[in-house]
């Protein structure tokens, strides 16, 4: 798709890191003096370096929790997680770039400033230097001209693009995307899925993508893990062997897509 232009940030570390999750359990104390609720019950997942894994499951199945566990933002009650061989939470934090469900853009910063935040924090850049280094990515990902727009001035899709560029700029080998397009209308979501596929083709990373949208999972992922309602377990895994690129209109109408979708929906109990 897009050819790689000259690298924007001194060769972002496009690492080759795999993710391995083994027998994870996670409990939450929902109410005081009540037994804790089991959110994740023995989840095991492996993601090869450079692979895109989608995790699909009903609301409340613990898929966002799983993402935060991989990112090192939460600690599991049992089981082990390794990202590129690193098992400690702090090391995992440094190996993963996390994109929260809502875009998390700061309303007092303009679009470029929001993306540059990643370089200020993760890279120790000064504000001005970070903006300078982030600017080329704006051109590459269809955001040129919107550098000084405030988040309130941007559409939902544009906000997600800025949030994704910020995630890329963190310069981590693993991207953890938590329902990135969940808040968008379905037309915009379709456009953004193709945009993300293009972005990942030009900036390959190991990706764990959480979604509740089966089409989104099949369009973007190499493999789909399907989770059960709480307590969350992986009930099925599907390999998505559809050729890339996968333009939405021509892909969703193929029999292969339909068959994969049927298997996924069946695993979801739909």
């Amino acid at each position, binding site marked *: 798709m897009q050819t790689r232009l000259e690298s924007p940030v001194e060769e972002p570390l496009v690492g080759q890191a795999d993710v391995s999750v083994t027998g994870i359990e996670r409990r939450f104390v929902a109410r005081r003096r009540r037994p804790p609720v089991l959110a994740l019950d023995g989840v095991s997942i492996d993601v090869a370096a450079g692979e895109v894994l989608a995790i699909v499951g009903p609301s409340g199945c613990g898929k966002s929790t799983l993402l935060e566990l991989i990112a090192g933002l939460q600690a599991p009650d049992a089981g082990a997680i390794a990202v590129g061989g690193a098992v400690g939470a702090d090391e995992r934090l440094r190996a993963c770039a996390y994109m*929260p469900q809502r875009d998390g853009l700061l309303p007092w910063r303009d679009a470029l400033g929001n993306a540059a935040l990643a370089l200020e924090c993760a890279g120790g850049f000064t504000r001005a230097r970070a903006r300078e280094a982030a600017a080329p990515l704006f051109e590459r990902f269809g955001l040129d001209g919107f550098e000084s727009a405030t988040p309130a001035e941007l559409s939902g899709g544009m906000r997600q693009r800025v949030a994704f560029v910020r995630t890329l700029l*963190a310069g981590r080998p693993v991207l953890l995307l938590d329902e990135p397009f969940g808040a968008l209308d379905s037309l915009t979501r379709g456009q953004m899925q193709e945009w993300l596929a293009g972005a990942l083709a030009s900036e390959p990373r190991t990706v764990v993508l959480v979604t509740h949208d089966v089409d989104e999972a099949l369009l973007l992922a190499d493999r789909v893990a399907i989770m059960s309602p709480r307590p969350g377990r992986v009930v099925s895994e599907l390999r998505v062997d559809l050729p890339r690129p996968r333009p939405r209109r021509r892909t969703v109408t193929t029999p292969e897509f339909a068959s994969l979708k049927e298997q996924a929906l069946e695993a979801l109990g739909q």
Partner: protein
Amino acid sequence: MRAARWIAPVVMFVAAILAWQGVASTDWFDDLTLASPAEVADSLWSDRSLLFDSLGTTVIEVLVGLGISVALGALTAIAMHLWRPLHEAAYPLLVGSQAIPVVIVAPLFIIAFDYGLWPKVAIVALVCFFPVTVNLMDGLRSVAPEQLKLMRSLGASRVQTLWKVELPSALPSLFSGLKIAATVSVIGAVFGEMAGAESGLGYLVLLDNHQLETPRAYAGVVLLAALAVGLFLLTTVAERVATPWTREGDTTA
């Protein structure tokens, strides 16, 4: 359209003044009891040098006191926010500082600090400290958990998170506190002056009361109210300049 918003309050204000003038012009009250707006206006002009000298004293007390309370309040709020044990240890004391009846304490401050500027400054700072500190602290804590997770995942240090996310998020709350502080600061200064002073508007009003200089007492009250309203408006303007994003319809997302 913008002008229309001003018409109703101005009409209301003028009506209130006219009603006051009307009541004062009857013979229900004698002149020593109730001054009319015309008499107050006359006093504002003819006693201007005394009134504005006194206003100057009060303005200094209020501004120095406010400045101290904002500086101390911001430091306290940030320290309590960053260090949980301090929050738990100091919170009762903080609430206690607001529970102190200033009217009673003012004379004690005068005894402790003598007449002059500093006891009034101390009282202003005392009454303003609580709204500044509590509002800033609430603002610092109100950041969405997701935002904090994002900063952690970006590898931000505690200071970076405070500086780049928590403090800007807390600005609207801080300004809410400042608006309260701006109005109560004038009341604090007046309490201080009434407990013992040699100048200032609170002192002048008290004196005029005793000497039956009713129009000048009213003029003093008008200036005190104008001072409080002026400080409030200044804070509002500063808020608009400092937090433009709060008016864009979309709050923190």
